[in-house]
C-alpha cells in the first residue's frame, strides 16, 4: 500500500519544526549545529521521496549535494565554535555579547 505524499510532507515539516525549535531555544552552539542538521535532513526527506514520486533522480542527486554541503558547513561552524571557546571560555552563544544585538 502506497503512503500518500502528504504524509511525507508532514514528516519533513515536523522534522523542520523540531529543528527550528532547537535553533530558537538552545544556547549551546553545538546543539545549534545539530538542529540545523535536522532542518537540512527534513529537506532531504522531501527530495528523496519526491524524486521517486516524480520519477526523476534530480532530487536524490541533490540530496547528496545537501549532505556534502552540510558537512562543509559543520566544518566551518566547528572552526568558528573552536575560536569562540578560546575567546569566551565556553560554547554558549549568548555569552558572546561584546557588541549589542
Amino acid at each position, binding site marked *: 500500500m502506497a503512503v500518500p*505524499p502528504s504524509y511525507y*510532507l508532514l514528516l*519533513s515539516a515536523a522534522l*523542520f519544526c523540531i*529543528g527550528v525549535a532547537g*535553533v530558537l531555544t538552545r544556547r549551546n*552552539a553545538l546543539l*545549534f*549545529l545539530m538542529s*540545523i542538521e535536522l*532542518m*537540512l535532513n*527534513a*529537506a*532531504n526527506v*522531501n*527530495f528523496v521521496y*519526491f524524486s521517486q*514520486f*516524480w520519477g*526523476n533522480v*534530480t*532530487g536524490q*542527486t*541533490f540530496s547528496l*549535494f*545537501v549532505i556534502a*554541503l552540510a558537512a*562543509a*558547513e559543520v566544518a*566551518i*561552524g566547528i*572552526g*568558528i*565554535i573552536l*575560536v*569562540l571557546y*578560546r*575567546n*569566551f571560555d565556553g560554547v554558549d*552563544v549568548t555569552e*558572546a*555579547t*561584546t*557588541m549589542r*544585538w
Partner: protein
Amino acid sequence: MIDLALQTVPGVADGLLPAAVLALTALLLFGIDTINPKEDSLALLCGISVGGSLLALALAGSLLAAGYEATPVYGDALMIDGTSLFFTLVFASVTALVSVASYDYLRDQDYCAEFYALVLFAATGMSLMAAANSLATAFVALELTSLPSYALVAFLKTDEGSVEAGLKYFLVGALASAVLVFGISLVYAATGAMTFSAIAEAMVGAGDVAGVLGLGVVMIAGGVAFKMAAVPFHFWAPEAYEGAPAPVSGFLSSASKAAGFALAFRIFVGAFPVEMAVPMGVDWVLVFQILAVGTMTLGNFAAATQENIKRMLAYSSVGHAGYALIGLAALSAGGPNGNVLGASMAHLFVYGFMNTGAFLFVAMAEHWGVGRTLEDYNGLAATAPVASVAMTVFMFSLAGLPPFGGFFSKYVLFYAAVESGFWWLAAVGAVNSALSLFYYSRVVKALWFEEATVPLEIGRRPVGLYVSVLAAALGTLILLPLFGPVVETAQTVAAALF
C-alpha cells in the same frame, strides 16, 4: 583580445572564463602558500589576487561589450548571459579594490594567502550565483559564497569582536541556508523540477498544490533575503560588519549583497514568472514589496541613530538593499519590467564602488588608530585631506545628492518604479533618501567642520588603502559620464531575462 586568446580552454564555456579565472587564482594562492608557507610574500600574494580579479574583470567586460549571447551550459545548470556578466563586473571590481586595500591590513597578520584565497573563492561563488539556472546550482553557489565569508568575518581569531561577528554571521547564515534548502525541496515537491525553465513549465499544472509551492517560494525569498541583508534576515549585518576586518565588511556589504540580488533576480524572474505566479496566488511580488518598504525604512531609521561609523554604514547598506529591492517589488505582468530590474542592477553597480570605498576609508581610519565613533572622526580632514575628499564623495553619492553616481542610479530606479505604476514605492524611497542625507552629512560635518578633540598623529600613509580608496572614488566619479551606457546595458540585459 584577451577573450579570443583564452577561448580555446577545453571544457570551459568562454562565458564561464571570468569565474574560472577567479577560482584558478584562488587555487594558485593556495599552491604558493603550500610551497612557500613563510609569510614574507605578501606583495606577491596581493599582486596575484589583484591580477586575477582584474583579469576576470577584463574578460567579463570584453564579453559583455561584444554582446554575449545567452548560452545555457552544463545541461541547463548555468546560464551565461548579459546579466551574469554584468554582475561579474561588479564582483570582480569589488574584489580587486578589497584585495589592494587588504595589503596594508594584512601586513601584521598571519595566513595572508588563506585570506586572499577565501576572498577569491567567495567571488567565484558570487559569479556562479549570478549565472545559476537551476535551484541546485543556486544553492551550491550560495554556499560557496557563504562558507568563505564566515571564515573571513572571523579572520582575526584572537579578537573577540571578530569571533563574535563570525559566530553571529554563521548562526544566521546556517539557519537561512537551511530555510532556503527546505524551500527548494517544497518547490521540487510541487513541480518535480530543478531548472528554472522546467519549474516555470511545471507551474502550469501545479494549481492544486499552490500552497506547497507558495510556502516554498516564501522560504526561498527568506534564504536570499539573508544574502541581501534585507529586513527579516538583516540583523546579522551590523554585528558582522562591525566585528569583521573593515575590508571584509566592504566586500560583504557590496559584493555579497549584489550576489544575493543577482540570485533573486534569476530565481524569481526565471522560475516563477510574474504573469504565471501571481494569478495562482503565489504572489511573491507582494512579499518583495513588504520587504522593500520594511528594509528601506528600518535601515535608514536605524542608521540615523548610530554613533559608531561601521554600524551606521551597516544599517545604510540595509537601507540600500531596500532601494535595490524595488527592482523586484515593482514587477508586474506586462509592465516595463526590464527597465525597473535594470535600474536596480545599475544601482547595485554604482553602490559597489561607493559603499566599498566608504568601508575602505573606515579601514584606513582603523589603520591609523582612529576610534570607531563619529566623534573620533572630528577634524580628520585637516590631517588627511585627500582621503577625506574621497569619503565626502562616497557619503554624498550614497545619500544620492545630484552631482554623484548615486543620484543618477536612484533617479533612474525611482523613475522606473513610477513608470511601472508603483509610485508609492518611489515615494517611500525618496522620503528615505532624504532622511539618509541627515546621517551621511553628519560624517562629512565631523570630517571637515568639527575640531579634533585629541590631536591626531598619523604614521605612514598606507599605500594600498590609499590606492583603493582613490580608485573607488574615481569609479564613483567616472560613473557620472559613463552612467548612460551602464544603465542602458543593465536594462538591455535585464530585459533579456523576461
